[in-house]
């Protein structure tokens, strides 16, 4: 799968935002370039969720907010057996949800 998760880089102040907005939250400029959201970072927080809204194969889902080294933060699936606050991870892309329209690809984090 060649799917990429993308955010926006403000063409005026250079702030990278994820997810995208119609207006730059930093300087209110309205023109952007698309940037790929990927790389290494650290786990800011995580949770194992047992109360799931849809059918997942697993009993629980391990979700995390990761702060990438460029400062951008993302929410995704943490694929690590022994999660810890601050642990180093890198992004990959995989199936994060099965919906009526098919498998949804999104960000996953693996230990580095």
């Amino acid at each position: 799968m060649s799917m990429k998760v993308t955010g926006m880089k403000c063409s005026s102040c250079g702030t990278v935002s994820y997810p995208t907005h119609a207006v730059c939250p930093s300087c209110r400029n309205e023109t952007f370039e698309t940037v790929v959201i990927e790389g290494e970072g650290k786990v800011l927080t995580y949770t194992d969720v047992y109360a799931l809204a849809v059918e997942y194969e697993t009993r629980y889902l391990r979700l995390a907010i990761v702060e990438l080294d460029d400062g951008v933060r993302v929410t995704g699936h943490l694929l690590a057996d022994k999660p810890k606050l601050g642990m180093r991870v890198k992004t990959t892309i995989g199936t994060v949800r099965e919906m009526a329209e098919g498998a949804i690809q999104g960000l996953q984090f693996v230990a580095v």
Partner: protein
Amino acid sequence: MKSVYIAGAGMTRFGRSEWPLMQLASVASLAALKHANLGGVPVDGVVVANMGAARINRQTALGSALVDQLALYPAAAESVENGPASGASAVKVGFQAIASGMADVVLVTGVERMRVVNGMEGTDFVASLSHPIAEYIYGVTLPSLAGLFARLFMEKHGVERKHLAMVAIKNHANAAKNPYAHIQQTITMEGILTLPEAVVNNPPIAEPLHMFDCCPVSDGAASLVLVSQEVAAKLKGPKVRLAGMGQATDTHTVHERKDPTDLKSVRIAAEQAFRRAGLKPEDVDVAELHDAFTILEIAESEASGFFPRGEGHKALERGDTQLGGRLPINPSGGLKAKGHPVGATGVAQLVELTWQLRGECGERQVKDAKIAYACNFGGFGNNVVASVLQREA
């Protein structure tokens, strides 16, 4: 701006109900109207708060439907959907109508009937308020956002699971004194945390949050009658003024907030509400906070201005927030034990506080309460409505 008074307050018991949506709304509304005892003064406007009826009950335009049930034509009517803050948002719409002089009497009713769908569908309907691309597709639910928030908050401020349990134990004990509460069962630290069987009694929902850290899924309705000063002057009964309201928003995703543990929207909404009321957090005698998850009661008690940052759990430990303490929080049982019919919650918080300020709360009455505060927390903190109430003579 003209002054706005709460002349009457009523609600249904929260829990599982067999009543259709509009019956819930009607029962609460009639209770509030009876409480207000308006005599011949007509109702000018009706505002209905609800989040999920379009999806889970296949009904829309609830304002018009309630006018019809109560035969209040030709009163103006609208419906407000603002996620879990729908209730207080609807109160704000009524407040604005009276404060602007457009209306003299407005009925505000919050209603939700969510137990008609299974737990998974109910969770999914509420999760639809999360960011569609950056959160929802990952299976993000409200409990999961609360879990992410709780782990960070607890790490930062030294809050332990025993503190979360203290919130639950306190609110269950309060709910046991509230005949309108969904859950009327007291719990103990041993049963939910320290005994070996606690792992069975209190399974994880979204670590570090467990079952007794999360509110139940409830059906129910709550209703207020708002009136102008002119109408209030004609009515018998205690005068409760809706002294100030505030509202603030924040980023849609939790991860985009510079410090995700800082509930900036609560802080700003509370500051506005207190400023408009001409009062301060230290003036408050009783508060209802949006404890959909136990961690939120602690975090909101700080962000609302009652305790310094990082010290909410210490106030809890000291017993400050229990009935009889310095500032009782959630005497109704809170969302945690009174229940959380989403669209009704923000109205129900103000129903409890109106009753408290009128001295009508029986066993859970906060003695001589004169000033009250409510925080209705929408999204996961991306839309918050705060209210300050004051008892006059």
